[in-house]
């Protein structure tokens, strides 16, 4: 039943450009969609392996920068007379490169960071993001630093009369939707596989998982790589939509936004980031349309966040799910979920 619901939803979403001619609304859908993809990737780390990574925007930004740089071309001096250069490549190639580079970074950072856990891991993840940001700011020869990489080419597929160019809103919206669906499927497959079960096991009780032979670090790193790669895709989409990338892409507020989407939606659920993403992607726009003072718009946003988390600490999706299954089995589902709560460290 729920499988069909999923595909029905996708079909409905795909039809949107046919009847929705409000370009601004499509724009909001696109930016929200990009953040939802990033939120889904964060959910893999935060929700499924239970690691509170607050540096996630680093992977997003690396994906954006890689895609921008590969499609613009670059040249850097490794030694005073020796340069490494790359001629501009087509955008689709750049995006694939972005996924690869982001994934690799995920591997490297994962291997280094997972020597620590809990609160320490939180700080390490923030620190990594900050260092990446500073590299972007200071390595001007490569990244243009604060002067920004602009005029990023539009994504084009095919050639000649069959060329599909993703400049206009409807096409880009469908692209984002397609990528989101693919990512969702990848994550769903991973989570429901043996690897996924191992991750959930180590989230629930790491020492117990180790004692039954689960290689914790291996699975954590795996989760990071996949998570980083997907965040990289989101970053690449961003780069080819907004078409300018500068170190501001590493703003902490973006990480915060993703975290909000995951946790309010329901971490550790597949639908969570989508629901949370939709809610907190649309709320700022609704607030903007209400024409109250800008600072107060933020205040309402913050209060709403607090209320959602306060009354639905496990997130919206589990709350709805709990409500429905509570109706049927009279509370056993709730009991089961509370028993599975991770032991407070």
């Amino acid at each position, binding site marked *: 039943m729920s499988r069909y619901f999923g595909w029905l939803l996708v079909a409905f979403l795909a039809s949107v450009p046919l009847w929705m001619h409000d370009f*601004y609304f499509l*724009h909001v859908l696109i930016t929200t969609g990009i953040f939802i993809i990033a939120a889904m990737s964060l959910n893999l780390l935060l929700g499924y392996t239970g690691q509170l990574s607050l540096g996630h925007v680093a992977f997003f930004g690396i994906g954006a920068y890689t895609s921008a740089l590969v499609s613009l071309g670059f040249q850097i001096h490794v030694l005073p007379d020796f340069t490494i250069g790359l001629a501009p490549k087509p955008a689709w190639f750049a995006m694939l490169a972005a996924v690869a580079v982001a994934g690799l970074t995920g591997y490297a950072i994962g291997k280094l960071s997972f020597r620590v856990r809990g609160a320490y891991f939180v700080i390490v993840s923030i620190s990594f993001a900050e260092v990446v940001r500073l590299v972007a700011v*200071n390595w001007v020869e490569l990244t243009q*630093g604060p002067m920004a990489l*602009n005029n990023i080419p539009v994504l084009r597929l095919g050639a000649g009369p069959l060329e599909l160019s993703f400049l206009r809103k409807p096409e880009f919206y469908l692209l984002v939707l397609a990528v989101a669906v693919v990512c969702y499927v990848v994550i769903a497959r991973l989570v429901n596989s043996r690897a996924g079960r191992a991750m959930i096991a180590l989230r629930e009780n790491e020492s117990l998982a180790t004692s039954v032979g689960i290689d914790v670090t291996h699975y954590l790193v795996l989760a990071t790589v996949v998570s980083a790669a997907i965040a990289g895709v989101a970053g690449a989409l961003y780069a080819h939509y907004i078409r*300018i990338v*500068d170190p*501001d892409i590493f703003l902490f507020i973006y990480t915060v936004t993703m975290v909000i989407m995951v946790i309010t939606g329901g971490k550790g659920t597949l639908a969570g980031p989508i629901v949370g993403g939709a809610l907190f992607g649309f709320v700022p726009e609704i607030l*903007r349309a209400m024409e109250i003072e800008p600072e107060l718009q933020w205040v309402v946003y913050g209060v709403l966040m607090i209320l959602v988390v306060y009354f639905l600490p496990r997130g919206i999706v589990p709350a709805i799910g709990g409500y429905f299954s509570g109706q049927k089995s009279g509370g056993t589902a709730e009991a089961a979920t509370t028993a599975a709560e991770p032991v407070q460290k």
Partner: protein
Amino acid sequence: MRKLPGLMATAVFLTGFVVTGAYAQETIKIGVTQPLTGAFAASGNYVAQGAKIAEEEINQAGGVLGKKIQLITEDNKSNPTEAVSTVEKLITKDKVPVLIGAWSSTLTLAVMPKLEEYKVPMIVETSSSGKITTSGNPYIFRISPTSAMEAKAFQPLVKKMGIKKASFLYTNNDFGIGSANEYSNMLKTNGATVGVMETMDPKATDFSAQLAKIKASGSDTLFVTTAVEQLTLILKQAKEQQVKVRIISCGGSNSPDQLIEQAGDAANGSYHTAFFPPWFPEVTKNPEVSKRYMAEWKKRGHNVGGLTEGFRGFDGVYVAVAGIKAAGKAEPEAIRAALWGVTVKGIYGDIHFNKEGPAGKESGQNVPVVYLVTITNGKVVKTSF
């Protein structure tokens, strides 16, 4: 009977809808995107306030093309993604034919692709990065000066002020880096040497390390490019650490009034480039305009320290309106074409647009006047150069 309240509500709603719709028909809308919250909120709000003054002045004088103008101001939250969203909304929902924005260079650069996509012109009121007018975007019309222009205007003063060795302290973003590069190049071609070039994070509050280095470098002058909050701290800390150099601030976001108020004695003896000197408006190109703006600003009780930024919004609106008038209609393409030919007597000077950038896709760039003022005994005075 139960349906009556519902029906009445609907009726009221529809009437309201129709009325506002009808009202909306009667105004010409101008979009404004500024950082009203976030890191640049102070400046963004000043620009928005200046723009509002112009809006009401123009409407009192009858508006343009027989209709009143209506500014639609959106908050871009000091964040490039939001800046793009504001421009999207202003163009696609509010259907503005011309925009003013977006304050900082990164925010302006972020929205430029959208301007080209939708073919709507934007008047750039503050940003200083050269890239904005050299990227080949024919929808950009900048009234603020570039760092290169500012440095060029400073040239004759190098000898007059006797600058032999100068160091630089600037923020690590496009604003600071652009300014420091332009000024240091200008100095080198004018017989001066460069000491140390120190950067600072735009959010930093402690500059003791950088100042100690500058002190040890033996420079006689220090060029500082940053916003007024950091400038206040730099002046205070330079005094605390006894860094006895002549301090010159660049970039125009320096608000000398605020410096006097907050840095007190430490501000004396410092120099500041300004694009509008509210302390002696009579030296500006169009003193009647300057005085009118200042009077209205003070009447509304706005912070006096904001005069040096609010005028950008003020001039921006007047230029937009001049473009609409010359075009004869509130259509983006017509306004874009018409802006090339306008001259506006503004606070920036006699505003007009020269071509700048790659051939065939030039942007418009104004050449504003640049002033140098100094603070003596707690007052801003003209320099004697």
